[in-house]
């Protein structure tokens, strides 16, 4: 029962993550890659992602403090961050990255700032949600 319950909860949660646009089909692919040999693949990848991308965040933090902003560099970091995020299916984060890069291209410091703040928020939210999700999945 508990199992069923948690399964259902899990499914529901997953569904909501998709519905709300936090995740996209890439995440499904990750889960499909799970098998007996690799039962927790999705979780591993997600963990790796959050660990690795924290350096993007800190790099961006640093870069954003410069004045004037080095848009080229920001764009470059963000490009990588975006690639990484898309690999796990972090849809909202990815969208925010794209927006940020647009601001960079336009050399809009203000826009970059805002976008970055938003990005960090999305990132944090996703992290929490996925943590919960994987907890449930255990």
């Amino acid at each position: 029962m508990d199992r069923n319950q948690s399964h259902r909860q899990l499914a529901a949660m997953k569904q909501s993550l998709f519905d709300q646009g936090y995740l996209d089909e890439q995440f499904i692919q990750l889960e499909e890659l799970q098998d007996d040999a690799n039962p927790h693949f999705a979780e591993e990848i997600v963990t790796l992602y959050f660990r690795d991308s924290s350096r993007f965040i800190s790099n961006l933090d640093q870069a954003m403090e410069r004045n004037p902003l080095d848009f080229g560099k920001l764009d470059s970091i963000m490009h990588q961050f975006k690639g990484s995020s898309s690999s796990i299916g972090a849809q909202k984060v990815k969208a925010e990255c794209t927006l940020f890069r647009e601001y960079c291209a336009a050399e809009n410091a203000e826009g970059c700032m805002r976008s970055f703040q938003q990005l960090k928020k999305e990132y944090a939210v996703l992290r929490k949600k996925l943590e919960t999700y994987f907890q449930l999945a255990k």
Partner: protein
Amino acid sequence: MTVETRADEPRGQFPVGMRVLAVDDDPTCLLVLETLLRRCQYHVTTTNQAITALKMLRENKNKFDLVISDVHMPDMDGFKLLELVGLEMDLPVIMLSANGDTKLVMKGISHGACDYLLKPVRIEELKNIWQHVIRRKKFDPKEKNSTCNQDKPQSGTTNNGLSSAGAGSTDLNAKLNKKRKDQDDEDDDEQEHGHDNDDPSTQKKPRVVWSVELHRKFVAAVNQLGIDKAVPKKILDLMNVEKLSRENVASHLQKYRLYLKRISCVANQQANMVAALGSADASYLRVGSLGGMKHLQPLGASGQFQNNVYRSLPYSGMIGRLNTPAGLGVHGLPSSGILQLGHAQNLNNSSGNSMNDPLKFRSSIAHVNQNQNGGSLQGMPVSVGLDHLQPNKAVSSVQGPTTGFDDKTMSLISNKLSDPRAGVGSSCSRPPLMGIASNGLLLEPNSQGSQGGRGYENLTSVASQHSEFSLPLMDNHNGRCNDNWPSAVQSSGMPTNSYPTRDCLHGGNPSGASSITSLSTQSHDSLADMQSHGPIFTNNNTTPNLAYQGWDDHSLDSLIPVNGGLGASGLHRNLDYSFGNPLEMKHEGFIKSAQDPSLKSNQGYIMDPHKAQRSRISSNNLGSLEDLVSAMMKQEQDFICDDFTGGTSM
């Protein structure tokens, strides 16, 4: 997943077990990619550093069937890696990026990528990537043309699948030929699909080794027909080589064209460098006559050089990549580079022997000229002035103990060089460039061995830039060329002639072989290397294909008074570069590049011998030449190094 470590035995199950090397600095992406690939039942090796990847590939070319690489990497630009791999190992490379910008995709394709995937990568896409391996194999000429049949690991291993595929599809081949450049895998894939897994490698398509000699012929044919009108069938007829199929020629032509294109791009950039180098190493530049050197393969003769090397060289401007700056053949160039292709005929014979060593390359180059008719350096910028290579002896570097790359370059160079200079390799004593105009191949394979090898690399890069061919020359020489080459080459922009980015070729078409010859003779002694090289550039501007002209400006002129009188006047100095026809040749560009003082350092060999000469040459600009050369060298080095460090890819 079935993992087959060694592809020695025919894999009846291809694409299962296909060995993929995945490179991506982002660990998340890399892990996802790896898992997806494993899911497709490939054998996967991963690394997050491009440099490591290169090392692994160089260790053993046969270890992998396919490479997938991210574009954006911190230690090396993905495009650069792409070029290098294509040049050195001739493996299919797939680019990966989160950025699907058309321009980037275009860049990837023009650098030789088989495909360009967007992140996030989906498994469906990965399931089809094996077709690139098949396709490439199919393109390999069925027969090996004289020269060595390099072991094609890929062919061997995947032959099974391929052979069946290959066998079944002659028209597939044709199609492939046609589509090679395009990215369309799908079609081919379809057809091959059926054939795979059937025969256990019934036919191993021997890869045609594009020896220097062969390449020369090829270039000559192409030049004769005119780069625009050159069609495989006609080229094949003109070349009149047995066992060479139309497909072989077609694919070689394709690569050559790509190479030319790249050279012209590079040449522009490097124009300065070349100019700098050009002066010094005009000879190198000469090599630029890449025209067609695309496949410097001819080096095959050297045996050492893997054909791949040659192949890759042409295209990729890898020459630039050839980090081995001096060694690359550029060194060789001055001496050998100048191959005086004009002489090629004679040289060829002699060089033929030497070719075995890096020089061979030169002879090839010389040969190239020969085609042209000796004087006509045209086909091969081979300015390899192999003759001058004296110091090169190392020229053999082409043979390159150097990394695989070297070999390639070397071969390229040798090929180029070998021609006119055929003898050049061995010691510059070669007859003056005989008008080596032969396209810069001068790459003097001599790169003293490792140097040379390296040199080639540089050369290659250079060459690729310029004339693809020309590069090889560079290596040998003391590796100096290498660096210079690319620059030199680039500057000239002359695809064909440009070789010599490094100094060697400066030869830039000394108004035609004649000048070179004169130069060569004179310089021969003094310059020993350079001289011959100089004129060798053969780039004889005459050849339309020669892109040398591209070099132009760079001022080989400035460097080398060579014009017309090549060298005779100032050049004799040894400035082979003088030949560099900067005068004519746009090589100047090279020479200009040579300007770099660093060049002097030797990047190129060209510089060295020339240095002395340069001073002599000062008549015109000697000083400048040296500077050029050194500049070129330096640039090249930088260039080369840069590549690795993610600098400009080309």
